[in-house]
């Protein structure tokens, strides 16, 4: 995308975990001095719930960003997926699996559209996915004024609120999806091709990679992840919510998490582990501020500053490494 983005090769996945540890340590100290408890059961559980929702989206986003693309339609895909799932279930446990299947199929179809627009129609990914987002926004605004449908009780009890010790099932789902994505990137032909396409599309093409097919697959996987996040949010909310994706800023926050995790926006470099770290970092900051009862708006200011500063530190380290 720009010269600034083409930094030399680096592995920053550990960097974000150092930042996470430091943040948690400082946060614990400040919260304790303040008379609160950061690692109490309710705080931990809610932290992991926040991380699960954003994480599912961000893992998918990682795949497209590594491929040199990006997806700004995810927020609308999430909202649509909550509605499709909740309306198809309509409070009936028997319809659980077909409804989830339907929500994921719709999401995958949107991903396919994104991928085809980016590859076959050669539209810049930024414009293509904003455009598809607008298409979905019109559909959602036109059809829904508020929550609709009813999530099956089994899903609410299972994915929504069930947990193993302090770890919610949804966070385990995130770990499973992240592990699968890591495996795909590290061990499969598709993963290697994706990294190659993101690194240099022309070289990849000349080496026999079918760029279009690879990018379309990445977009489908990204939308599937967003659809899964939608199913999870439907299980939390008990119904479909037409604005949950946009109000949660899932499009921009997922990209922020990906970049915090050390994946280059220009593509070709990065990984899922870093993204999970980035998500946990954002969720921890959220939890710490909630414990300190910081004003929601102030929280947003600090969040903006932290995102910029963290990425600036990465860039600095990369420059220093390049110099030495």
């Amino acid at each position, binding site marked *: 995308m720009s*010269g*600034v983005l083409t930094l030399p090769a680096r592995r920053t996945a550990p960097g974000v975990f150092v930042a996470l540890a430091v943040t948690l340590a400082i946060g614990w100290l400040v919260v304790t001095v303040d008379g609160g408890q950061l690692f109490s059961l309710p705080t931990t559980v809610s932290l992991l719930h926040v991380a699960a929702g954003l994480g599912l989206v961000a893992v998918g986003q990682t795949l497209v960003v590594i491929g040199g693309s990006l997806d700004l339609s995810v927020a609308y895909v999430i909202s649509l997926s909550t509605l499709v799932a909740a309306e198809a279930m309509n409070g009936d446990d028997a319809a659980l699996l077909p409804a989830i299947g339907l929500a994921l199929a719709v999401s995958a179809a949107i991903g396919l559209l994104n991928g085809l627009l980016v590859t076959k129609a050669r539209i810049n990914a930024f*414009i293509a996915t904003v455009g598809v987002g607008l*298409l979905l926004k*019109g559909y959602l605004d036109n059809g829904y004024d508020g929550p609709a449908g009813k999530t099956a009780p089994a899903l609410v009890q299972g994915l929504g609120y069930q947990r193993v010790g302090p770890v919610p099932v949804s966070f385990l789902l995130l770990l499973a999806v992240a592990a699968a994505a890591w495996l795909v990137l590290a061990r499969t032909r598709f993963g290697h091709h994706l990294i190659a396409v993101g690194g240099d599309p022309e070289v990849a093409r000349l080496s026999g990679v079918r760029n279009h097919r690879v990018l379309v697959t990445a977009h489908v996987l990204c939308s599937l992840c967003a659809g899964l996040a939608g199913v999870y949010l439907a299980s939390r909310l008990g119904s479909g919510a037409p604005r949950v994706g946009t109000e949660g800023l899932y499009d921009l926050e997922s*990209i922020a998490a990906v970049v915090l995790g050390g994946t280059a926006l220009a593509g070709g470099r990065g990984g899922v582990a870093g993204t999970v770290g980035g998500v946990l970092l954002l969720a921890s900051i959220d939890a710490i501020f909630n414990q300190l009862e910081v004003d929601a708006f102030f929280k*947003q200011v600090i969040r903006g*500053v932290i*995102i910029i500063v963290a990425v*600036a530190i990465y860039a600095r380290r990369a420059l220093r490494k390049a110099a030495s």
Partner: protein
Amino acid sequence: MRIAESRVLPRFARVRPGGLAPIVAILVVLLVLLTLRQPDFLSPPSLMSFLGRSAPIVLLAAGQYFVIVSGEFDLSVGSLVTAQVVVAARLIDSEPSRSWPVVVVLLAFGALVGLVNGVVTTRLGVPSFITTLGMFLILVGAVYLWSDGAPKGGLSEEFRRFGRRAFEDVPALGRIPYALLILLAAAALAVLLSRSDFGRTLVAVGGNPRTAGLSGVRVWRAKTIAFVLSGVSAALAAILLGGYSGVSFQAGAGLEFGAITAVVLGGVALGGGRGSVVGAMLGALTLETLFALMNFYGVSGALKSTVQGAIILLAVAVSSVRSSSR
């Protein structure tokens, strides 16, 4: 508008073959559709007020052009417009005498935000997508925080006239909105700037920063100035928008995507190095024409974004297929 097309465009079209043709074609088609439905749309009074209404987004597109052609993004302009409008209302607090000082404050504030965006992007090596996204979060959070969740104070009539008053009873044209005059002045400045050494340098920087740097261009300075221009254009847009539609936290919502879309519709390449500021401004005008068209054809408010999305995808797809086959 017709005058402008017949006189100015052919010359530009010759200078940059094919650069402006697609956007002019789309604009003409939309104008024809609009005239079919609303024959008096092109009559001077309605055309004048349409152009006045479009001024803010055209200004934003011009500012965004400089950033995009240099290879960066500015996602903070929408939140900057909101922040400016809310800040203006609180500072003026319905006191007419404060109008001019506040205009100066807003322009300086816009330039400052642009400067921060530019310096963080170029000197700290943060991708502009992230810098301006962070700035977006900061500005939205700060403006809510500063006003405790609801806009305070009010704009004076002195301040609002830029956005909603006009020279009345002008012969032949009827009325000329102040906003249109401000737009014309800013547009002339933008065109001059884009054809100056700085403008050409900026395109070179966007095309290949390394080559530009090795040829002696101070890349960081050129890009930073582009961000400052975008910030100042957001300040101007905020002054006009605040005057036209008043104070709200939604004043600038979504304008960043509107401006970027307009710039891309106008044939400017995301990633930098190609495009013209005239194209960017025509792109914005096309987008506004599209909204007017949907109003006249009675497209329900909610479905507007669907139609908008479809047309943007279509237009960009057609022009990118054209340019790649050339």
